[in-house]
């Protein structure tokens, strides 16, 4: 238990050490460093769950405020201007290292389980195409958006974001289309029959 907990500071520290190489490439900065920092906070949330204050669990109705915070924090750090500032101002980079785990990863980990399935589907449905669209903008932009990245690095970042969006979108569509258990399997058919009967009995 304690060793897994130690993962959080270790991962965080490693990301801090790997700062320069990851931030050197826009694609790594956006598609690797930022998500990993969020991941650190997410891990932290799973360890902190037993200590979550009651009032917070109650006020975070359906996980809406928490996930809204995630949306704000991630949008903030994806702004080209903030990417630039993170490179030029060490204190801004430190703020990023503190706020992405604490204001994006942590609320994500604590609020996501509270969000009902419909809300999660809504968030996925909005997140995936927007990620792809940002990627498309980077890929197609004729000018540089960041002072610290070349046009080709910006295009590579665009491709990376589009790739992530395609992978996520494909996974999501396969899951909703095929279902689990898959509809052609025995288990799937049995489950469908059973559900049918329950519903008919309820009518």
């Amino acid at each position, binding site marked *: 238990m304690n060793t897994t907990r130690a993962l959080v500071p270790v991962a965080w520290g490693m990301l801090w050490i790997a700062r320069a190489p990851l931030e050197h490439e826009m694609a790594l900065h956006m598609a690797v460093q930022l998500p990993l920092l969020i991941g650190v906070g997410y891990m932290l949330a799973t360890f902190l769950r037993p200590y979550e204050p009651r009032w*917070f669990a109650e006020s975070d109705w359906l996980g809406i405020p928490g996930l809204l915070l995630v949306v704000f924090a991630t949008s903030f750090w994806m702004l080209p201007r903030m990417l630039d*500032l993170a490179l*030029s101002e060490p204190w801004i980079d430190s703020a990023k290292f503190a706020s992405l785990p604490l204001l994006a990863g942590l609320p994500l980990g604590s609020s996501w389980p509270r969000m009902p399935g419909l809300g999660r589907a809504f968030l996925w449905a909005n997140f995936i195409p927007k990620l792809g669209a940002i990627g498309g903008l980077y890929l197609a932009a004729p000018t*540089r958006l960041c*002072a*610290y990245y070349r046009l080709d690095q910006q295009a590579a970042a665009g491709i990376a974001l589009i790739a992530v969006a395609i992978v996520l979108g494909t996974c999501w569509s396969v899951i909703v289309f095929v279902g689990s258990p898959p509809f052609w399997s025995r288990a799937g058919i049995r489950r469908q029959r059973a559900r049918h009967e329950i519903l008919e009995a309820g009518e």
Partner: protein
Amino acid sequence: MTRGFALLLGLVLCVGVGALAWATEGFRVITSQGARQLSIARHPIPVPNVRLVDQDGHTFSFADYRGRTILVDFIYTRCPRLCGVLGDDFRQAFSRSDAKNDRVAFLSISFDRADDRDTLRFYADRYAAKTPGWRVAMPCDAHGLSTLLQTFGITVISDGMGGFVHDGTIYLVDESGRLARILDPGTRIAAGHP
């Protein structure tokens, strides 16, 4: 749902919108370039009196231009791309400007320490730049260069092929020697601006 929900939601909204507003200067810019443009337009800043040397080998400084408006661009003479566009644009504008009209001056500053008087001369000849109306110059020392880059807010990065990547923006220094405007990247003055 508790009362805490409304409170928490309000708090998140305020902090979130506030942070985004701060980062985008009130939802007007998303890039650092845009932010700088906006801040200069609102609060012009004095340009430090850096000494430069031009294509004829004469030294001069920004103070020599008092009372005139200067259009400044940053170049390096080996540039295979953008500087050609900038040079052409300045040439057209310069050739149209009245020689006796000395209210507007042109100034191309090299940020490449590898440039010297000969390469500046070469660049100047290519675009028919003539002192004193259009100087192609470089700061006399490395300290002067970094001061200038800092003041004008220019980030120059390597293009990975021995050259540089820069964004070819044109800057306007007003009569009292202040950096007063940063034109939109891609603006070409020969087309009638400003």
